[in-house]
C-alpha cells in the first residue's frame, strides 16, 4: 500500500491529507488488537480534523489497549481518481489498511449533505452500500452524530445508529462486539443484542407502514427491540472522559487549535435550533476541570490557541473564574483564548477585556432575525437594545469589524422582517459614527451573513413548511435592495442546497432509494458548491416518484407521526407543540435558568436538571 501510495501522492492536491503520521496519531501492533474501529468522517480531512467529537472518541477507544481506532476521511476527487486508477481501496490513515479489514466502520453524520459521501466511502472501501447486501464477512457499519436523530433516510445503509452522546454507549457497543466476535455470534444476532444498549437503534428491527398520501401510519419493533429508542446521555459531564492529546495535523485545517468542551446542551430554547433541543438537558463542567483540560491539551499539542467550545459559552456559570484562572498561565505561555458562541445579552465589558487581552479580531453576533416580532417568534431572547449595547462595547473596545448572522425563511417571516435585517445593520453603522470615542482613522465594516432556514426534527419548527427556492430568492433580492450603505456587506448561501437539506432532514425511509440514485449519478461531497449536482437529485426524486415538496414545503399536523417519533431525545412532542403554538403568537419562553418550561429532557437524568426546579 505504501508503495502504491507513493506513486500517486505527488499527483494530488495537498498530499499531507492522505499520509497520516501526525503528532499524537496512535499506532498499535495489529496482532495485539482485538477490535479495529475505523472512524470515518464523510467530508474532507480539513473539515473532519476540526471536529471535536471525533477527537474525543478516537482517544477514548484508543485508551483501551486491545482496541484500535483509526481515522478515515473522504478523499477529494483528484485523489479518488488516482486511487481508482491504481486500485487502492479506501484506507485508514494510521495503518493504511483498507476499511474491509476492520471490525467496525463508524460514520459521524454532522450534516445531511454528507449522506452520499457515506455511500461513496463504503463503495471505495469495496463494501456494498446497502446493509442487506453485506453478509457476515463485512464489517459492521454504524453511524452517530446529530443527523442520527432522524436516521431514516440512511436506514438502508447503516447497520446500527448510535443516538445521543457516544462516550458510554459506543464503548458498550464495542465491548459487546468484542464478545460476539469471540463467541462467533452471527451479525444479525449481535445487532439484536446491541439494540438493548441504551441509544442503539438497529433500523432493520423496525417496520414502517405508510398511508396512501405518503405519511407514516405506524412504526413497529420486531424481535423485542425497544420502542421508543432512548438516546444515550452522560449523567455527570464534569467526570466524563476528555482527551489529554489531540492529533495535530500537518496541514492547515478549518479549526486548527486546542478545543475544550465547557458545557453540553443549551438553556436558551431558540425554536429554530436543533442542537438546542437534541443535546438537552444543560450540563456544565466545573472551571477547574476545564482549565486542567486546556492546560493538558496545550501541553501535549503545542497549540497556541485554545477555544472554549459549546453551544453558548457565555452561559457557563463559572465563565468569570474560568477566564481568570486561564489567564494566569495563558499569557505567560503565549496561548490565546477564543470564545465562539457568545450571546449578545450577557457579553460584559469584563469578558471583552479578558478576551481582548490576548488577541483582537472581529466579533460575531447572531441576532438571527431583523425584527423584534420575529425574534420573539423564534424565541431568540435578544433585544435590539442589547445588540446595540454589545456593538457599542465592542466599538469602544477598539473593534471595527462586526459580523451579524441572520436567517431567512423563518416561520411567520414577512418582507418587512427581511428589510429589518438591513435596518438593523444600518443602525449598527450609524451607532459607530455616533460614538465620540470610536476607533480613530478606521471605518466600520458590518457584515451580514444570511443563511436559509431549514426546519429540523426535534424542534418546535419540525411541523413548519420550508420556504420554496422561489420565495427564498425573492427575499434575498429584497434584502439586497434594502441595503443602502457601502459599509454593509451581505453574504448569503445557495438556496438549492438548503432545499435538499430540508428534504433529507425530515425525510423517511422512502428517501434511501433517492440517496442511492443520486450517489450512483455522481453525487458526492454535496456540501461543496463545486461538487453539488442538483440535477442528479432531481432526477432521483423523479425516478422514484417522490415529490421533494412533500418533505420540505408541507405543513404537518401536530398529530402526524414523524419519521423520528419512535426515537426519544428527551424533549417531548407535547412540549414542541406548545412551543410551536407560542411561536405563532410571537410569545417567548424563558430560558432554563429563569424557569423550567417542562421540555421533558430532565427525565433522562432521573431528576431535576438546571435549576433544581424542573417540572
Amino acid at each position, binding site marked *: 500500500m505504501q508503495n502504491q501510495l507513493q506513486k500517486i501522492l505527488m499527483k494530488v492536491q495537498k*498530499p499531507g491529507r492522505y499520509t*497520516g503520521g501526525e503528532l499524537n496519531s496512535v499506532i498499535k501492533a495489529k496482532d495485539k488488537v482485538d477490535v479495529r474501529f475505523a472512524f470515518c468522517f464523510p467530508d474532507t480531512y480539513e473539515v473532519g480534523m476540526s471536529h471535536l467529537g471525533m477527537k474525543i472518541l478516537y482517544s477514548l477507544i484508543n485508551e483501551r489497549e486491545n482496541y484500535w481506532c483509526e481515522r478515515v476521511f473522504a478523499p477529494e476527487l483528484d485523489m479518488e481518481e488516482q486511487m481508482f486508477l491504481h486500485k487502492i481501496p479506501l484506507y485508514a490513515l494510521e495503518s493504511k489498511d483498507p476499511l474491509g479489514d476492520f471490525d467496525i466502520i463508524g460514520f459521524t453524520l454532522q450534516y445531511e449533505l454528507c449522506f452520499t459521501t457515506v455511500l461513496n466511502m463504503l463503495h471505495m472501501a469495496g463494501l456494498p452500500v446497502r446493509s442487506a447486501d453485506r453478509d457476515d464477512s463485512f464489517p459492521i457499519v454504524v453511524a452517530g452524530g446529530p443527523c442520527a436523530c432522524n436516521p431514516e433516510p440512511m436506514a438502508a445503509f447503516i447497520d446500527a445508529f448510535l443516538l445521543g452522546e457516544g462516550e458510554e454507549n459506543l464503548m458498550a457497543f464495542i465491548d459487546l462486539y468484542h464478545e460476539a466476535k469471540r463467541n462467533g455470534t452471527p451479525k444479525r444476532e449481535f445487532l439484536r443484542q446491541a439494540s438493548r444498549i441504551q441509544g442503539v437503534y438497529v433500523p432493520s428491527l423496525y417496520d414502517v407502514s405508510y398511508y396512501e398520501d405518503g405519511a407514516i401510519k405506524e412504526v413497529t419493533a420486531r424481535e423485542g427491540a425497544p420502542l421508543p429508542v432512548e438516546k444515550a446521555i452522560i449523567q455527570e459531564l464534569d467526570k466524563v472522559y476528555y482527551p489529554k492529546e489531540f492529533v*495535530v495535523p500537518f496541514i*492547515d485545517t478549518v479549526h486548527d487549535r486546542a478545543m475544550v468542551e465547557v458545557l453540553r446542551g443549551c438553556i436558551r430554547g431558540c425554536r429554530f435550533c436543533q442542537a438546542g433541543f437534541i443535546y438537552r438537558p444543560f450540563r456544565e463542567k466545573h472551571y477547574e476541570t476545564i482549565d486542567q483540560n486546556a492546560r493538558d491539551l496545550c501541553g501535549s*499539542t*503545542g497549540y497556541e490557541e485554545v477555544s472554549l467550545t459549546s453551544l453558548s459559552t457565555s452561559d457557563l456559570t463559572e465563565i468569570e473564574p474560568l477566564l481568570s484562572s486561564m489567564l494566569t498561565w495563558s499569557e505567560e505561555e*503565549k496561548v490565546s483564548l477564543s470564545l465562539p458562541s457568545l450571546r449578545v445579552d450577557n457579553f460584559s465589558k469584563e469578558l471583552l477585556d479578558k478576551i481582548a487581552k490576548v488577541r483582537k479580531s472581529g466579533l460575531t453576533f447572531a441576532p438571527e432575525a431583523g425584527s423584534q416580532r420575529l425574534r420573539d417568534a423564534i424565541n431568540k431572547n435578544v433585544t435590539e437594545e442589547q445588540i446595540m449595547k454589545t456593538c457599542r462595547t465592542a466599538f469602544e473596545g477598539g473593534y471595527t469589524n462586526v459580523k451579524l448572522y441572520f436567517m431567512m425563511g423563518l416561520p411567520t417571516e414577512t418582507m418587512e422582517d427581511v428589510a429589518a435585517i438591513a435596518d438593523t445593520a444600518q443602525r449598527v453603522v450609524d451607532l459607530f459614527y455616533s460614538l465620540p470615542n470610536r476607533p480613530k482613522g478606521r471605518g466600520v465594516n458590518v457584515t451580514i451573513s444570511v443563511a436559509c432556514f431549514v426546519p429540523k426534527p426535534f424542534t418546535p419548527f419540525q411541523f413548519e413548511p420550508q420556504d420554496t427556492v422561489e420565495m427564498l430568492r425573492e427575499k434575498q433580492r429584497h434584502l439586497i435592495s434594502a441595503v443602502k450603505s457601502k459599509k454593509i456587506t451581505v453574504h448569503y448561501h445557495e438556496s438549492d442546497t438548503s432545499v435538499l437539506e430540508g428534504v433529507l432532514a425530515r425525510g423517511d425511509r422512502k428517501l434511501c432509494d433517492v440517496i442511492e440514485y443520486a450517489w450512483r449519478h455522481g453525487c458526492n461531497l454535496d456540501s461543496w458548491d463545486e461538487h453539488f449536482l442538483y440535477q442528479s437529485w432531481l432526477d432521483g426524486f423523479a425516478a422514484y416518484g417522490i415529490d421533494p415538496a412533500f418533505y420540505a414545503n408541507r405543513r404537518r399536523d401536530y398529530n402526524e407521526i414523524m419519521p423520528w417519533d419512535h426515537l426519544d431525545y428527551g424533549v417531548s412532542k407535547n412540549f414542541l407543540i406548545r412551543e410551536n403554538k407560542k411561536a405563532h403568537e410571537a410569545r417567548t419562553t424563558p430560558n432554563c435558568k429563569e424557569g423550567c418550561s417542562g421540555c421533558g429532557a430532565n427525565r433522562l437524568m432521573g431528576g431535576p436538571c438546571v435549576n433544581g426546579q424542573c417540572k
Partner: protein
Amino acid sequence: MDNANDFRPIRVFFSKKGDAIYISHLDLTRCMQRCIKRSGIPIWYTQGFHPHQYMTFALPLALGYESECESMDIRLTEEMDLSVVMELLNAALPRDIRVLRVTQPKMDPKEIAFAEYEAEVSFACDSQGEKFLALLEQDQILVSKRTKKGPKDVDLKPLLELLSWEEREGALHLSLRLPAGSTLNLNPTLLFDAFCRAYQCETAQWKVRRTRVLTANFTEFC
C-alpha cells in the same frame, strides 16, 4: 533587552523522510513551532503586537523531497546544553522528522550556493536511459521555472552537474548537483520536466533526496 542579538542563536539540522515529505514548507514551519512549544525549549519570541517564535530555515525544501540536511535557526532565551535541545526536540517531533545535530551557526545561509541530490525516476516511455543521455547531450536544456514574477526559461545545461547515474530495476538513479540558495535555486524535478517535454511522456514515479547543502567552494553548510 529585547534585541534579537542578545539571545544565543542555534542551528538545528534535521532529516525529513517518510510521510513527512508531504509536509509543505509553510506547514513545516507551523509543525516546528508546535513541536518547540511542546518540547519546552526556551525559544525567543519576536517582540511586537503579535509575538511569534523566531525561526528561519536556511533552504526550504520542495514538497515531496526527502532530505538529510535541513536546517533551521532559532534563538534561546536561556542557556541550555545543545545535546539536551536535540533530545527534547526529538521527543516532541513526529517520527519522520528527526534532529541530527544542534550546533552554533558558523555560516550565513546567504553563503549557500549548491545542493546535491540523489534522485530515482522512471518515465512512462521506452529506452529512457538512452533518451536521458541524449537529453544531456543537447546544446541547451531549457526548462520553465516558476518564479514570483511568473514562469521564466532557464537553461539547465551549464548549471547542472551530473555526478553519477545508472539505470537499474526500470529506474534512472541519478546523483546531481544544482545551484541552490536565495539567488538561484533549481530543483531536480525541473530536469524530469525537461525530459517529459522533450519526449512527450509523463513521469511514472520519482523520488528525490537532498543529501548535501554546499557553499560556493563546495564546503558543507554548517
